[in-house]
């Protein structure tokens, strides 16, 4: 809320500088987000007196004026306005002046006559909305004074929190200033001179929905003359960020800013039968609102109607037909209290939220209905004349007494962690208008309110009762009193110390496995990325990453359907991703556009899906390799990434997590994979801990993503423990005491045999002395047949209780050879 300080001073004395006041308010919980010098953009605009006003010899609509600006020779200024006369005091923009909107004023020539500046309209200065005439200043305005010194103001931008609707006005903020500085509040003197007949003869009000409109106060003014409101009022409204409209509308807006009470003024003549009905809309009813939009009203909308139909949406916006116009003379004033939830829903329903509805939504002090109606009537009479009908229509004239809220001062101290004496607490509360008194016996404490109320017997604890001012609708439970004590005292007075209470039990961090993997992959040369979880639906359609059973996340039985955002910001981010690979392709594309060809990235992130109406989330590791694994260097040849790099990373990962060797199974489905360069991976333990897919992408995918990289290697892995696991423990094998024996074996097999088959066969036949098998060479070509290949393995034999004899090893090797021959029709190259 914008708070012009000169306006605020009407209600409370301010001794502090704006900066000091801003800090005090901020520390009290009314955060000042900005301090604006209003009028700072009137540079070199001074007060002048018109000495002469004559017709311009060459232009009918222009005048030649001479203006005394307090010093030096009178200035000759050409002016186009018609409301000027000698003797008037007016704002004069001197040559070199800059007006709002960075408009520069220079010495010019108009129709052959020099003009040494400009006389300003209210609109040109953004003081009033009058663009036709020159702003005529009061007669006594000091000559030669800078206008900004006279009319400039300091405007505080105060962030009023949603629970403090009472402070969304000058009176409310004046109360906070008073609490901060100890100054006293000055209420405006609200009194209405009633010259007309009884209001009941002019206006009838029927409230059909007393639950939704708990109070309706109406007044009637006859014979008003619509025109601009006084310049000072327009200036205040402008400084507060509200556009002046006319004296009657300005009166209503002024009261909203002053008291926080939204009211509405109708053209009384346009209210049929002078009867206002507060009711729910009927299906099919329509209303053109003040913003000239015709709205279809839904039956749950609370409206203001006359016997012929709707004339306003209650608490949100009035209707165009009953708008105050220049011809209006009869004014009906509505000052009502509406149900906050109803107003809020209506505002959302019509995407129409006004300054009025924002205040209604936060709840209104009950007596404001009366005060608001009276204040609007008073200001209308002052600014537009006319006579006010006697009395008010009031559907609920009984105003409730202040609520009483019992609290235990000792609890307040305990919550704040500081012993604040009771007398102190009472003084602090008094500064925000909360009187306290001793509690009677049997009083109960509201610890917690709706929707989970908890009311307790205080037992022997000392209890005080806070008399809550009627405007403080936010104070409902004991903790609310604690906050008032704390904020008025100043949070800086709260001591700071480290907790000395019990520690919680140990719990392993769910980030542990993730962090280990992240560190490892970064060490292996990959960079971590964090991408959007919200992606385009195209993503999934373009990539077609398999979602079959094989691919299901380990920690979740089903990937399920895609979750769709029902109110997305853009279609680019409208669904939750099920897979991470598409996001990594986006990262590659972005970096390629920046000229980066070598991109090796990974993300540990979530996939999302829905199954059986329930959301599911799982954590995955995805990686992408494109460009050079080894960028060219003066001392090394470059090498492009290939599938083996991804495998190496998977194997490193398994070692790092103490998992068994992973097994690879070719995936020859084709798109989105290279049909000959894709596989699924799982490690071979009893409890599957890792699975997923590793592939070189099909060229059509890279084309789809407009990628320059010819070969893009990707992987997406589910790893048990990624979400919340521990790193597996290492169990140490004793260092062998007896030497191991190594033997090499070159196995020639048909090309269709996989390395995995050959290795598994060796392991199967190697016997218990075989400790390890490692492929060290792959050969195709002469003298082998074209359909053959040779795989060379190094076999390691050993046992823990003796040195092996040659004979034992020969025997084991023979068994391996025989097994290979029998199972795979392999022969051994010697």
């Amino acid at each position, binding site marked *: 809320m914008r708070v012009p300080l000169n306006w605020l001073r009407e209600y409370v004395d301010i001794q502090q500088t704006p900066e000091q006041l801003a800090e005090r308010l*901020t520390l009290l*919980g009314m*955060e000042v987000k*900005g301090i604006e010098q209003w009028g700072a953009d009137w540079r070199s605009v001074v007060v002048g007196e018109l000495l002469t006003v004559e017709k311009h010899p060459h232009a009918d609509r222009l005048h030649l004026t001479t203006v005394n600006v307090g010093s030096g020779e009178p200035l000759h200024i050409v002016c186009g306005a018609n409301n000027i006369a000698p003797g008037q005091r007016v704002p004069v923009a001197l040559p070199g002046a800059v007006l709002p909107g960075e408009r520069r004023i220079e010495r010019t020539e108009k129709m052959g006559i020099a003009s040494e500046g400009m006389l300003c309209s209210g609109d040109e200065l953004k003081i009033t909305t009058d663009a036709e005439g020159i702003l005529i200043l009061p007669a006594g305005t000091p000559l030669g004074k800078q206008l900004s010194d006279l009319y400039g103001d300091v405007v505080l931008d105060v962030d009023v929190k*949603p*629970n403090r*609707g009472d402070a969304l006005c000058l009176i409310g903020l004046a109360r906070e200033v008073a609490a901060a500085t100890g100054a006293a509040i000055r209420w405006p003197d609200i009194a209405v001179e009633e010259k007309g007949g009884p209001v009941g003869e002019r206006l009838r009000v029927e409230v059909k929905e007393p639950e939704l409109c708990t109070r309706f106060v109406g007044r009637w003014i006859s014979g008003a003359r619509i025109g601009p409101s006084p310049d000072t009022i327009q200036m205040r409204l402008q400084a507060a960020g509200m556009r002046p409209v006319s004296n009657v509308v300005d009166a209503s807006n002024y009261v909203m800013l002053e008291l926080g009470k939204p009211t509405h003024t109708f053209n009384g003549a346009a209210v049929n039968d002078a009867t206002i009905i507060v009711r729910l809309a009927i299906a099919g009813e329509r209303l053109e609102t003040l913003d000239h939009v015709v709205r279809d009203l839904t039956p749950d909308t609370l409206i203001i109607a006359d016997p012929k139909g709707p004339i306003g949406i209650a608490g949100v916006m009035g209707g165009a037909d009953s708008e105050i116009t220049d011809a209006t003379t009869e004014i009906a004033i509505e000052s009502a209290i509406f149900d906050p939830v109803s107003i*809020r829903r209506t505002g959302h329903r019509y995407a129409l939220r006004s300054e009025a509805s924002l205040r209604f939504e*936060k709840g209104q002090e009950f007596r404001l209905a009366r005060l608001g109606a009276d204040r609007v009537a008073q200001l209308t009479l002052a600014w537009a004349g006319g006579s006010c009908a006697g009395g008010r229509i009031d559907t609920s004239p009984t105003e409730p007494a202040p609520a009483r809220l019992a609290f235990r001062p000792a609890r307040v101290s*305990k*919550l*704040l*962690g*500081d012993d604040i004496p009771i007398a102190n607490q009472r003084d602090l509360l008094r500064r925000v208008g909360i009187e306290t008194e001793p509690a009677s016996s049997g009083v109960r404490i509201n*610890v*917690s309110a709706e929707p989970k109320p*908890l009311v*307790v017997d205080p037992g022997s604890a000392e209890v005080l009762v806070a008399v809550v001012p009627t405007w403080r609708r936010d104070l409902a439970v004991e*903790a609310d009193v*604690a*906050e008032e004590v704390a904020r008025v005292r100043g*949070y800086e007075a*709260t*001591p*700071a*110390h*480290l*907790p000395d*209470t019990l520690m*919680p039990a*140990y*719990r392993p*961090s*769910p*980030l542990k496995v*993730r962090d280990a993997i*992240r560190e490892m*992959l*970064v060490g*292996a040369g990959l*960079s*971590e*990325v*964090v991408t*959007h*979880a*919200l992606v385009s639906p195209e993503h999934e359609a373009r990539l077609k990453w398999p979602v079959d059973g094989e691919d299901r996340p380990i920690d979740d039985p089903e990937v399920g359907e895609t979750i*769709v955002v*029902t109110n997305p*910001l853009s279609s680019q981010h409208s669904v939750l991703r099920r897979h991470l690979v598409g996001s990594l392709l986006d990262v590659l594309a972005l970096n390629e556009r*920046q000229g980066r060809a070598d991109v*090796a990235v990974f993300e540990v992130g*979530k996939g999302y899906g*829905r199954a059986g*109406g329930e*959301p599911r*989330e799982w954590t995955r590791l995805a990686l992408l390799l494109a460009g050079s694994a*080894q960028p060219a*260097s003066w001392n*090394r040849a470059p090498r492009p990434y290939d599938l083996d790099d991804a495998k190496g990373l998977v194997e490193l990962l398994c070692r790092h997590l103490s998992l068994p060797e992973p097994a690879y199974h070719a995936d020859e489905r084709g798109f989105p994979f290279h049909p000959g360069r894709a596989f699924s991976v799982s490690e071979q333990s009893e409890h599957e801990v890792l699975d997923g897919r590793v592939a070189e992408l099909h060229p059509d995918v890279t084309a789809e993503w407009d990628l320059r990289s010819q070969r893009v290697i990707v992987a997406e892995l589910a790893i048990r423990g990624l979400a919340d696991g521990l790193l597996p423990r290492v169990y140490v094998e004793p260092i062998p005491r007896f030497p191991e024996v190594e033997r090499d074996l070159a196995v020639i097999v048909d090309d269709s045999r996989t390395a995995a088959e050959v290795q598994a066969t060796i392991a199967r036949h190697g016997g218990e002395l075989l400790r390890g098998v490692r492929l060290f060479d792959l050969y195709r070509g002469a003298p082998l047949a074209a359909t053959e290949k040779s795989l060379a393995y190094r076999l390691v034999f050993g046992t823990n209780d003796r040195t092996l004899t040659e004979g034992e090893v020969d025997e084991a090797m023979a068994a391996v050879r025989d097994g290979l021959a029998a199972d795979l029709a392999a022969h051994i190259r010697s």
Partner: protein
Amino acid sequence: MDFESLSADLRSLQARALKEIAEVSDPASLEALQIQYLGKKGDLTAVLRGIGALPAEDRPRVGAVANEVGEAVKGALAVRGAELHAQVQALRLASEKVDVTLPGRPVGRGTLHPIPETIAAITEVFGQFGFVVYEGPEVEDDLTNFQMLNMPPDHPARDLWDTLYVDIPGHLLRTHTSPGQMRVMQTTRPPIRALLPGRCFRYEAVDASHGFEFFQVEGLMVDEGTSMADLKGLLDEFAHALFGPRKTRFRPGYYPFTEPSVAFDVECVVCGGVGCPACSKSGWMTILGAGMVHPVVLQYGGIDPERYQGFAFGMGVERIANLRHAVPDLRYYLENDLRFLDQFR
């Protein structure tokens, strides 16, 4: 053959050998000399073959001379060998000289993303004070995200969190990590010291300081006497750990799920508190929101507010990272331009 002529032969052999050894210039020739003079079929052996013709009494004397000659040649060979080795080695080393100012062979290492790294920095500090990490779902239900946090439907404070909804009835994308408080309270008993890092979503247009996806870290501490003074003490430690010895400020804030509520400011990291555009001339930067857990929230969490009290805090990870690393634009984080990420080496 007599003793005199034999020993003269030996002496001349010695003189010849020493001369040749001194003249030799490579290890291979030196080795050839060793064989020539001292080998089984070498010159020394050949001379000594004549020893048999000597009278028995002369033989030991010749033996002594021969030993002397042998030792002298051996010694000369060793000395010359060492010299030659040193020469050869020096030559080799000289030939192996490199320009040490050339850059090294690149060892590829990637970079960790600043978001998880900032989360790690935050959890590290609170971890020292016994806070343990939990995680909650990102696709939340309205009940946990709002209602149990004291925001029933149509509560005006819901405006503080513009929400993205999903096609699962009653569900939304969590707008903050605060629903995690509820998840912790529902699964564990006090004493509670919990941290909840994670991704959040809001219906918010993207610019340099806003995004529809961002990360938060929530903290929750509940025990019998946990007070606002504990909160203040911990937050001071945290701010000093991450931002150094700067002034901090504790002031009233507003959240429906805390009472009293707190905004926590740190002296502006750009201007040091003097006032600059980065801190809107206030000299302060707000780094997190906090407060004492509202009794309604404790009740929803199954915790008796008469017995227990506690505090919660929530901070934007990007905000913390921005201040620590002077990142000018929030969009950098999820865009993953390597020119940005590479800087975190």
